[in-house]
């Protein structure tokens, strides 16, 4: 017995000594003193040097999107570093094209702040914040889709472009001991900046959707961050085709609100696909949009209309409906939101009908 304890003590003390050495080393060696980060030539941040840029910016409440959490494996956290980052590291080159390297783009998780540096980040990322909110309403849209409204508390308002998404924080709950963030498009009016609506479809065994459907109640506090994404209306006045399925409805509701606010009368045909009429939702809201927006038309498409019910609208796949109604799309723009399968099929149909690929905009939700 004594031998056990002595052994454990000895090994622990050796480990503790080595750990202490590292802690001391971190304190005295990896201390680069105060550094200054100049953001977009105007804002200055005073921080302690020695940490990766991604972490430093997160501590300063500037959230750079990153999927791997700073391990240098996803290549998402790209940031323009104008000055003070040193040469591009071998751990970054696999993720940066030649043009990006020439343009001073770096992976912010690999760049350490050792001295004063100057960076450039898109204005939108400045708007990215962590929001504390309260669930203010849950509305059933179909048998497997709900619209959740969140009232923002801290900060109390959000500035976003219609089409962008937020990352919803899903805490641990009974049945899941993981904390996750999941991305959902904002489905509310960008002018109503004190709240965020999300349309969520139940995913069987999904960590976050199960929490939203089975555990989240009105009045519960909810955290999210955002807005992210560059899915949005283009600046042109070309006629547009929207295609969505399921919860892909969300960004288009927001975009239509935005068009209503700005009295935008661009021609839009919105194809919304479902398996049966039970999958369709928000008809009355779409009717309102049709009345107030001159160029807008909503086309629900049902793949399998049940026998006996008289479904008079379009049938088949959304892509088939598009092919029936359009023969030439070379002057159109396409906007897609839905499952990867639906998006790939739609892109094929669009390009076959002559739509240039750079005029097709989409958000893929895997």
């Amino acid at each position, binding site marked *: 017995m004594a031998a056990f304890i002595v052994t454990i003590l000895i090994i622990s003390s050796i480990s503790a000594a*080595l750990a202490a050495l590292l802690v001391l080393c971190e304190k005295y060696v990896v201390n680069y003193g105060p550094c200054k980060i100049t953001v977009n030539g105007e804002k200055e941040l005073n921080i302690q040097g020695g940490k990766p840029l991604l972490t430093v910016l997160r501590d300063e409440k500037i959230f750079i999107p990153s999927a791997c959490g700073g391990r240098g494996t996803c290549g998402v956290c790209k940031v323009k570093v104008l000055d003070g980052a040193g040469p591009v590291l071998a751990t970054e080159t696999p993720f940066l094209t030649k043009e990006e390297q020439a343009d001073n783009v770096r992976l912010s998780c690999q760049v350490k702040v050792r001295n004063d540096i100057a960076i450039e980040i898109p204005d939108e990322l400045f708007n990215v914040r962590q929001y504390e909110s309260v669930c203010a309403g849950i509305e059933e849209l179909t048998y497997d889709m709900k619209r959740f409204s969140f009232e923002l508390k801290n900060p109390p308002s959000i500035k976003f472009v219609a089409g962008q998404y937020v990352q919803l924080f899903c805490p641990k709950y009974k049945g899941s001991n993981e904390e996750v963030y999941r991305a959902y498009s904002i489905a509310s009016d960008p002018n109503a900046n004190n709240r965020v609506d999300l349309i969520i479809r139940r995913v069987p065994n999904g960590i976050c959707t199960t929490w939203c459907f089975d555990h989240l109640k009105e009045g519960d506090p909810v955290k999210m961050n955002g807005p992210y994404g560059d899915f949005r209306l283009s600046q042109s006045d070309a006629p547009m085709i929207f295609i969505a399925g399921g919860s892909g409805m969300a960004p288009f509701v927001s975009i239509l609100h935005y068009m209503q606010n700005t009295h935008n009368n661009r021609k839009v045909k919105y194809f919304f696909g479902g398996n049966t009429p039970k999958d369709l939702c928000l008809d009355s809201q779409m009717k309102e949009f049709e009345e107030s927006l001159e160029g807008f038309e909503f086309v629900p498409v049902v793949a399998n209309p049940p026998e006996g019910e008289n479904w008079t609208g379009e049938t088949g796949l959304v892509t088939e409906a598009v092919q029936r109604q359009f023969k030439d799309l070379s002057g159109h723009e396409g906007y897609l939101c839905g499952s990867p399968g639906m998006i790939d099929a739609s892109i094929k149909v669009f390009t076959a009908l002559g739509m240039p690929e750079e005029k097709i905009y989409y958000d893929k939700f895997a």
Partner: protein
Amino acid sequence: MNNIGSEVWLAMVTCFAAVFTNNILLTTFLGMCPFTSVSREVKTAAGLGGAVVFVMTFTTVLNWLAYKYVLIPLELEFFRFILFIIIIAAFVQFVEMVIDRYSPKLYQSLGIFLPLITVNCAILGASLFMVIRQYSFIVTIGYGFGSGVGWFLAILAMAGIRQRLNESRVPEGLRGPGITLIIAGLMALAFIGFTGVLN
């Protein structure tokens, strides 16, 4: 005096053996993970190889000291796995911090690879072989250095071959790790040719 002379000679022979006849990568296939994933470019492979030479030399020496002066007196030899891993991890962390601070140039070329090899099994393997084969201190230096150089040569050769492969048509199913493992096997066969050089 004569004794030390023969020790040094033995260390040199062990070093040579570790590089060629007993190459840690090609005979025991240790450290395959970075070997397959970081061997796409000669430049990065050389950086990683350099880091391995450095870490292997110093950790085998440190571990020899820890084994001889801590584990044997305390009769805790069976704990060598854990202690060796802890020492390797701490040493790598320490070195990374120091060169990051004092030599940014060296950090660019070598330091960024250090975290990748903390958990490289070849590094631990070298320390364990050194115990199993009961090397003396001086021989351990030669062995650690030689093993590192052997690994370095192997990954450098592999990176050179893979750069050439970029221009040839590899069957789709074999691209990447598949063809790399086949090449590693052929290289191992080639290294067998060195057996018998030392007798």
